[in-house]
């Protein structure tokens, strides 16, 4: 049997099964849980890279579940965009998994750890599922697998996380239900659930109001899941109070996968011209996301809690991506897709650093960052790189996606949005240089409290790897665009 043929299903099935095995392993030999957990995610990384290579070499992969033909059975379709996303999700989940070993020690009780690992694997399963599937109802199921495990993971955190998780459940369920309604309306008029089948069927139905209703439900539903301002209320609390490993993993992947779903719905399910020319939807989304960028950045300035600051920055970054895909030109789309990668590295790295600082000083308050450079120079160097990338200073990765977004905005004539994008960069500069000044140039008064050294090696390596990736990937942006993103451009771009 050629294993490579089945990569696309294995990447979903392996973590799913592993999450159950992990619980049994807990009863047999608790020590094995963590190595097993990391091993499984390592296998997922290998599989995802295999998938990416296959897609680059042989084009679109199609995998029929149970051998059923496409419109009837469930089909997994992987093109360049999915493969790209899978690699991002799997690598981030692997990196954060390594990081979680020591970081959860202070946040989660030992007895709960195996369950934490299982839920983490379930979240990964859900995210992989969303990216590989070519069926809109199947996508809903995976969306809910991912969300349910995310609710649980958030609730493991400190005391206040439980209420945050509850709000997340309420909002997330509304989002998922809206998505399901969208699926219902699409099914009513076409009788199909397969994305490639729908691409063929829908164009004749563009005049129908039902189609429009479905699209509206899809967009609002996904808007909640990706926390597009003002539907973002669940995000800051959840990511602030969740365990740091969860914040890092979820912020780096969950919202990005949501963006992926938005791209699929808007540009694969429907033709780009439907959103851009026939309806004012993409125009609405552009203004909507511009507002999201503006307010996300604005609110971020006023926060004292570092993780909360990051959450609001994340909300602004989501605005970037939604903005980029809706501009309707090549540059904007490339910028948005590139930003999926860059942002997941940057925000993941920053959340891991936030967790690392919490691990050492037990505080997330920016005021307590004074003089940290003396104690943890390597972590703070990584912080500097991630911060510069967030601001968009070349040659870090963040610059290149921003470059494409701004060029796209200018070419499409959305000058106000371009100004807002730059405004947001400036706000990031303000936020991060304020922190950098504390880290490097302010002495902390209560020195005896700060008698500690660098982070444990298992936390440091992931942070350093992501920071280096931010530096290096930026230089290979062109390579990524020409070998992957170029092929995922929607028709007519």
């Amino acid at each position, binding site marked *: 049997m050629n294993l490579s043929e089945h990569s696309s299903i294995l990447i979903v099935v392996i973590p799913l099964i592993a999450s159950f095995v992990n619980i049994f392993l807990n009863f047999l030999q608790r020590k094995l849980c963590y190595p097993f957990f990391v091993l499984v995610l390592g296998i997922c990384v290998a599989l995802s890279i295999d998938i990416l290579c296959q897609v680059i070499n042989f084009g679109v992969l199609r995998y029929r579940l149970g051998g059923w033909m496409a419109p009837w059975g469930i089909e997994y379709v992987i093109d360049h965009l999915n493969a790209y996303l899978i690699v991002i999700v799997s690598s981030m989940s692997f990196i954060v998994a390594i990081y979680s070993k020591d970081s959860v020690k202070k946040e989660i009780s030992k007895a709960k750890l195996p369950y934490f690992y299982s839920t983490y694997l379930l979240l990964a399963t859900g995210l992989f599922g969303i990216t590989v599937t070519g069926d809109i109802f199947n996508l809903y199921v995976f969306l809910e697998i991912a969300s349910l495990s995310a609710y649980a993971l958030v609730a493991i955190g400190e005391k206040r996380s439980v209420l945050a998780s509850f709000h997340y459940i309420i909002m997330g369920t509304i989002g998922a239900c809206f998505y399901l309604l969208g699926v219902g309306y699409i099914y009513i008029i076409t009788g199909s659930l397969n994305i490639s089948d729908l691409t063929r069927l829908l164009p004749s139905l563009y005049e129908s109001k039902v189609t429009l209703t479905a699209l509206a439900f899809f967009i609002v539903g996904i808007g909640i899941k990706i926390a597009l301002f003002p539907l973002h209320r669940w995000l800051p609390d959840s990511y602030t109070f969740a365990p740091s490993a969860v914040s890092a993993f979820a912020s780096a992947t969950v919202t990005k996968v949501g963006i992926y779903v938005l791209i699929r719905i808007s540009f694969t399910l429907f033709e780009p011209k439907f959103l851009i020319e026939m309806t004012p939807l993409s125009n609405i989304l552009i203004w909507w996301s511009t507002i999201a960028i503006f307010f996300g950045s604005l609110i971020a300035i006023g926060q004292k809690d570092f993780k909360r600051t990051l959450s609001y920055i994340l909300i602004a970054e989501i605005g970037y991506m939604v903005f980029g895909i809706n501009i309707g030109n090549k540059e904007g789309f490339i910028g948005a897709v590139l930003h999926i990668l860059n942002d997941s590295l940057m925000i993941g790295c920053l959340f891991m650093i936030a967790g690392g600082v919490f691990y050492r000083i037990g505080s997330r308050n920016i005021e307590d960052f004074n003089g940290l450079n003396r104690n943890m120079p390597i972590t703070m160097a990584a912080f500097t790189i991630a911060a510069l990338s967030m601001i968009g200073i070349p*040659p870090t990765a963040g610059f290149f996606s921003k*470059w494409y977004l701004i060029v796209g905005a200018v*070419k499409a004539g959305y000058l106000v949005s371009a100004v807002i994008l730059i405004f947001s960069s400036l706000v990031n500069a303000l936020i991060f240089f304020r922190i950098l000044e504390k880290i490097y*140039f302010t*002495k902390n008064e209560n020195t005896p409290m700060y008698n500690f050294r660098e982070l444990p090696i298992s936390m440091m390596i992931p942070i350093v790897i992501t920071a280096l990736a931010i530096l290096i990937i930026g*230089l290979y942006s*062109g390579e990524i665009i020409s070998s992957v993103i170029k092929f995922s451009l929607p028709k007519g771009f």
Partner: protein
Amino acid sequence: METSISIKPVLAIAVSAVSAFLIAITGEKLRNLRETWSILASIFKFLIVVSMLPDILCGKVIEYCLFRITSELILHFRIDALGLFFAMTASFLWIITSFYSIGYMRGLNEHKQTRYFVYFAITLSATMGVAFSANIFTAFVFYEIITIATYPLVAHKETEEAKKNARKYLAYLLSTSVAFQLTAIVLTYCLSGNLYFSKGGNLSNDISSSLLTITFLLYIAGITKAAIMPLHSWLPAAMVAPTPVSALLHAVAVVKTGVFMILRVVFYIFGVDLLKSLNLETVLAVVASFTIVAASVIALRQDNLKLRLAYSTVSQLSYIVLGAALLSPSALKGSIFHIIAHAFGKITLFFAAGAIYVTTYKTKISELDGIGKRMPLIMASFTIGALSMIGVPPFAGFISKWYLSVGAIESDKIFVLAILAISTILNACYFMPIVYVAFMKKSKDSKYNGINEAPIFVLIPTVLTAVLTLVVFLCPHPFIKLIILIVNQTFGG
């Protein structure tokens, strides 16, 4: 034009980057070895830069494409006569500044000297990067690196005042470059499709003139390092830094990078013809003239010696900008000559100010009574620097003023002559009193009477630069030869 491909530009940049690394790992304990790295790097860098001179003098252009990030964002070096001229000035002055830094930092027993030398070396690397860049993107990358690498130097003292001023420094430089310069670059790309500096200008005439005007103004506002009013106040703020850093800012790297970029934008992005047709050169000339006069007037009122020098720099830099704005060959000659004349003159003045501080801890002009009798050599150097700034023969400043005046007549802008005359008088007004009190008045401090010169490491560089100011006047031919080449390359003669 003949092109030769050589890795020398990369070496010239790398040599100080490597030395920064070596300095960092050598550390405080082996301070002699650490200082050796600085000095070796500065000498090597100068030698590498000079080794390119023969090729350039033959009219060749040296190119090296470092990294093709995306199809339009390319890290590309191309060295023409202008770039080499700037690189030579900066790298030569770095050697002198290195010696001076050692004397100054040790004399004052400053803290964190390792950090200081590391960032100094990085700044020089980035300055070479700007000098060698073939397109505005590469220049922008290194421009930002300079901004960030000089920030720790400005904040070196880590006092509240130092931090506040460093914040101001960073806020001005970073926010304008991200907000205005980046936007201008994006507009340039959208208007012309590439970002290269090309002879006679990159942008063409057939684009709407209002967009071009906006782009030009954004460039002028975005290249804040040139300290054109009203975006100049970061420069006086940066005076909190140690004196060698001020020398670096004012003479070696930072502000010169600014004016160099302005020259590039004026002659190689827009081009003479385009600017003339849009009448933008008048705007630039008026702004520069205003800066020259206004900054001189402000300088008159400063009692702090370094602040007075800072405002003098603001005023002198605009000479260079003004020379560019006149768009005539002679004015350009003057403008470029002033880069070197001002560099030598101002570095002498700053070295002298630093020497006074190291020996007597005096910073105010009102305290300098009789200082000339204590430190005759230093004050003699100071006088030479001041005379050169005013433009008195036989010092370098005279030559640049001469060419500027010729250029003003050539391009029929007689008001510029008046500006030059007023400015000369103002320069005399704020420099001569210092010289007067230093030599003529009696010291109030009766304790020190005999001669008490600065430490040798500080003294020699100061005297050396003063002598050089004279030498440049007496045999300007090697410089003039290169400058004529620059003018020919720029105006296509």
